[in-house]
């Protein structure tokens, strides 16, 4: 497919949403104020593991303004456990700890009071009698049969232990001239939105309906709430017109919504719970993957990498959550952008007495990319070969697409070498090398980092049936509904919340493009879940592909109807008509305008073609392109589209101080056809900032007593505008053959490669000292200490 010219798509247009956000007129969950609303504060466990003997709430209940105290025992008896994607029925999770606490910070009970301050006062009056239990924090220890099980009923800490072999791994290793092995560890970090999770729930007993306003990014949210609360699906109404103040995966909110929904129903009053930062960081859905990799690669003397064995051990925290599946998504790009003939992949997920791991930007892909890119650097170092040349040798060539990888996914399109050439030119690579050497001459430790990686996008989440054979889901649809009113104006409905992705811009741009009308004239609304068509929320970099696709297909249906009406009216075959700018043109010069069609469709049924329904409305429920099969023999095709990014960074640090300063950062990004350039650039820039945090600063770290040491912004350090340098984003467009405009996903861009690139640069800087940093984040003190130890 070649790149096409568009009127609105890819054009530099201001995102629609900007106006209300810049003016401070967003509608966030904290803006929802219901009459007679009550407030909730949860009591957190101090123990990483304990059996709860008794909870004495008597004193708290006597306080003025305290309405109720909900315990785990109460809610455990009243609702269904939260959804668990794996086939591990004994690993049960409720919004509050039932009988046993499994991590420090876990919510044990919840006070309901007239104000949040009173609720916090009451927390101090609750007496917990608990017996501490042995606990385990480290994933390798948790794997040992002797380790204390986090869920004794389950029998061990192993949630998932799957060994995949794709291709002739042993053969390829035997034939290859060289092999090497290493291990790297991805520290537990996350996306950290400005807005913590919040929810308001209100039960209307007369209508038997639960209204939910939530700061959420969660597929099938209303279904999950209904199932847990034993309600019919149509008794839960989630309002999608709530703006979400940041997410990138972590606004799951299912335990919160079931807890608050339960309380709202029990007490008959609206209930609000908005996490404070401590609650969010200790026990919200705040933590991302924590993963140790053991990697072995087989390669030839010319640098060709033949095969890879990867063991990935993930520390899921105290419950199953979505964490184990984050080992699944990377299967769809397990060889990265490289021609690697065979792979074995051992995916292990264990429980530990840490906070539960939830979905985070990239869904496990960024850690895996870090491991693959480290392998590339190690092979180059072993062969004393240029790291860039090594990658160029192994990259898939542009004429090899569609490219089937050993684990069953087929990459759609790409021109990786072209992107790299553009980046080398934009960054002025020879000068960059000279600058590095110049910095070294001045006594600085300077290094260049390189990372190439893929962003699987448009997800059908086929990793679920792959990792859990009892799960037969292959449907991951998205939908859009459009209607032209009696005055001729177009309104589109989207059936999800947004957390900054610009879905209103996406849909109006796509509709404007197809219907050839001004996108800024199109109204976008977000109905509630009961008024919505099915969808799966913005996860897995899917919305440009899926929501954009559904919008385009709706518009095509509307356009077809406009042409049919015109054909009837003009008395000409539809095939002879052309559509332009909202009007339909006949070869003889006659014109049937948009407003003519509106008049006929809304008011002149007698002039419509026979059998045609009145009105100008259309909808589309779209299945993920290429997603049409369940796994076979441990292989499955997952994602329709694969975006590519190539990072090139120069950084330097003083050997004593050890604080990396980024001197130059260039990224090449190919996500096919870009719908809105400002949104895509913003995603990429933010993703790189996020990756700088993961590489250098951010970690949810625990002390040996199982206590989270980084539970506020005092210790959980995120890069600020001072630490994020200007970034040169070089664009390239290889359209996808599977999507309406050739677009691919970009919601996770930047983050998927920047941690690998930063690590690569730091390791390049210290390579002469024979030092290797094998764990993220690489703290400045660790850099300085390692250099000092070498010099000592």
């Amino acid at each position, binding site marked *: 497919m070649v790149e096409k010219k568009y009127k609105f798509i890819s054009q530099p247009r201001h995102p629609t949403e900007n106006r209300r956000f810049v003016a401070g007129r967003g509608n966030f969950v904290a803006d929802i104020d219901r009459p007679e609303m009550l407030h909730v504060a949860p009591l957190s466990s101090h123990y990483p593991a304990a059996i709860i003997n008794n909870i004495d709430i008597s004193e708290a209940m006597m306080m003025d303004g305290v309405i109720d105290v909900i315990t785990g025992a109460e809610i455990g008896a009243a609702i269904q456990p939260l959804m668990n994607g794996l086939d591990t029925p004994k690993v049960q999770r409720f919004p509050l700890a039932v009988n046993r606490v499994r991590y420090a910070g876990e919510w044990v009970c919840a006070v309901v009071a007239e104000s*949040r*301050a009173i609720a*916090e*006062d009451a927390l101090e009056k609750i007496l917990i009698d608990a017996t501490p239990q042995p606990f385990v924090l480290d994933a390798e220890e948790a794997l040992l049969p002797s380790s204390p099980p986090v869920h004794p009923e389950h029998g061990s800490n192993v949630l998932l232990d799957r060994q995949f072999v794709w291709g002739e791994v042993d053969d390829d290793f035997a034939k290859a001239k060289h092999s090497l092995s290493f291990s790297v560890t991805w520290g537990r970090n996350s996306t950290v939105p400005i807005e913590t999770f919040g929810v308001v729930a209100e039960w209307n007993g007369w209508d038997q309906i639960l209204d939910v306003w939530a700061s959420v990014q969660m597929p099938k949210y209303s279904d999950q709430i209904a199932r847990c609360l034993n309600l019919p699906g149509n008794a839960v109404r989630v309002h999608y017109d709530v703006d979400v103040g940041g997410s990138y995966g972590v606004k799951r909110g299912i335990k919160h919504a079931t807890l608050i929904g339960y309380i709202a129903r029990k007490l008959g009053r609206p209930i609000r719970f908005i996490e*404070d*930062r*401590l609650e969010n960081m200790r026990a919200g859905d705040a933590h991302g993957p924590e993963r140790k990799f053991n990697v072995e690669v087989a390669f030839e003397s010319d640098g060709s990498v033949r095969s890879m064995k990867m063991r990935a051990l993930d520390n899921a925290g105290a419950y199953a959550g979505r964490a184990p599946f984050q080992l699944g998504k990377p299967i769809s790009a397990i060889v990265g952008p490289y021609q690697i003939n065979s792979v074995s992949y051992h995916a292990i997920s264990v429980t530990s007495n840490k906070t539960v791991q939830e979905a985070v930007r990239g869904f496990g892909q960024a850690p895996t990319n870090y491991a693959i890119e480290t392998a590339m650097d190690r092979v180059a170092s072993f062969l004393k070969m240029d790291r860039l040349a090594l990658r160029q040798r192994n990259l898939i060539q542009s004429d090899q697409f569609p490219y089937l990888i050993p684990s069953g996914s087929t990459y759609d399109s790409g021109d990786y070498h072209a992107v790299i050439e553009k980046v080398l030119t934009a960054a002025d690579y020879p000068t960059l090398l000279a600058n590095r050497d110049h910095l070294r001459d001045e006594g600085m430790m300077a290094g260049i980092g390189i990372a190439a990686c893929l962003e699987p996008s448009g997800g059908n989440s086929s990793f679920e049936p792959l990792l859990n054979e009892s799960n037969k889901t292959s449907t991951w649809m998205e939908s859009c509904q459009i209607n032209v009113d009696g005055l001729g104006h177009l309104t589109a409905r989207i059936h999800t919340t947004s957390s900054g992705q610009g879905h209103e811009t996406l849909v109006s741009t796509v509709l404007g493009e197809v219907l050839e009308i001004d996108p800024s004239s199109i109204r976008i609304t977000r109905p509630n879940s009961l008024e919505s068509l099915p969808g799966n929320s913005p996860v897995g970099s899917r919305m440009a592909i899926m929501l954009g696709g559904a919008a385009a297909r709706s518009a095509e249906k509307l356009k077809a109807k406009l042409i049919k009406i015109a054909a009837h009216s003009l008395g000409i075959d539809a095939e002879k008509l052309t559509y332009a700018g909202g009007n339909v043109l006949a070869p003889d010069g006659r014109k049937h305008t948009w407003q003519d069609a509106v008049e006929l469709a809304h008011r002149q049924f007698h002039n419509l073609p026979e059998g045609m329904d009145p009105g100008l409305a259309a909808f589309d429920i779209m299945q993920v392109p290429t997603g049409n099969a369940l796994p076979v023999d441990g292989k499955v095709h997952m994602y329709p589209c694969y975006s590519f990014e190539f990072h090139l960074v120069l950084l330097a640090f003083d050997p*004593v*101080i*050890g*604080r990396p300063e980024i001197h130059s950062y260039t990224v090449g990004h190919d996500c096919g056809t870009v719908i809105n350039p400002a949104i895509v650039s913003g995603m990429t820039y933010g993703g790189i900032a996020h990756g700088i945090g993961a590489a*250098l*600063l951010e*970690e949810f*770290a625990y002390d040996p007593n199982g206590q989270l*040491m*980084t539970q*506020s912004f*005092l*210790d959980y*350090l995120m*890069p*600020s505008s*001072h*630490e994020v340098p200007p970034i040169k984003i070089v664009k390239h467009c290889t359209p996808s053959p599977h999507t309406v405009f050739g677009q691919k996903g970009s919601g996770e861009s930047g983050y998927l490669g920047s941690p690998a690139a930063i690590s690569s640069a730091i390791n390049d800087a210290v390579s002469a000292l024979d030092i290797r940093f094998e764990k993220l984040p690489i*703290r*400045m*003190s660790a850099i*300085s*200490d390692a250099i*000092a130890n070498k010099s000592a």
Partner: protein
Amino acid sequence: MKPVNFDYERPRTIDEACELLASNSNARILAGGQSLIPMLSMRLSRPSLLIDIAHIEDLGEIVATDTHIEIGAMVRQAVAKNTIMIQEYIPLLSKALQHVGHPPTRARGTVGGSIAHADPSAEIALIAVTLGAEITYRVGGDDHMFDATEFFIGPMLTVAPPDGCLVKVGFPKTSKICGTGFYEVAPRRSDYALASAAAQINFDSKGAAKTIRVGVGSIGDFPERLDVDNLLKTDLNDESIVATVKTAITEIETVDDLHASAEYRKRVAAHLAVKALQTARDEVREAPVK
């Protein structure tokens, strides 16, 4: 993150503030609130009475005496940073103030509040110790003066009287010819430092070093002076600076945490102290004639 209930008073005079302090053994003074307000929210501090001194006009003054610049307890860090008298007579404090928090926190935070709060990584406390500032508290009707070098005794711990209200901090003026250096290292700009160092060399009219003061912060429980008097006998060459700092810093106890090892803190503090001394030596500047 909601504070425990407390009463709130906004006195107009220092004596009124002292009376309020005396009336309640669980009272706390609120100045700029950049540390106290988060501590209240996290219930780490649980006073039953909060005395907001922001409206006591006397506490907002900056006064020059023959020997000192006296900064009132409520002078905001942003004001101190932009006050020409401070830039001219306490250039080391001016340098340090660039590193205190961010513009929004400096607009609220006060010089006195930082001293009273006694965070081990506070830049202002480090300058007070390095220069030997005079810290004045009023207790009842009387003023009590404390030498900054003996004021800080632990993280968030000082010898200040519990029923006293900080009135002012007097920083000694530099000699006519002086040089200063200030450096700190933090994971992020304006973050809590992992190590910091300040140096001031006062020269006599012939250009010979008269006094040399060096302090290090952020590495132990409180900022401390380094004994570098040996340097007075040298011509301040690099070798003697490095050697003197290296010896002096061995005395300092350092702490370690998630963000930096104790070894790191000591190594980097020494490195910064050397840099601060070199900068002070190289930056001979003349203060305005009194």
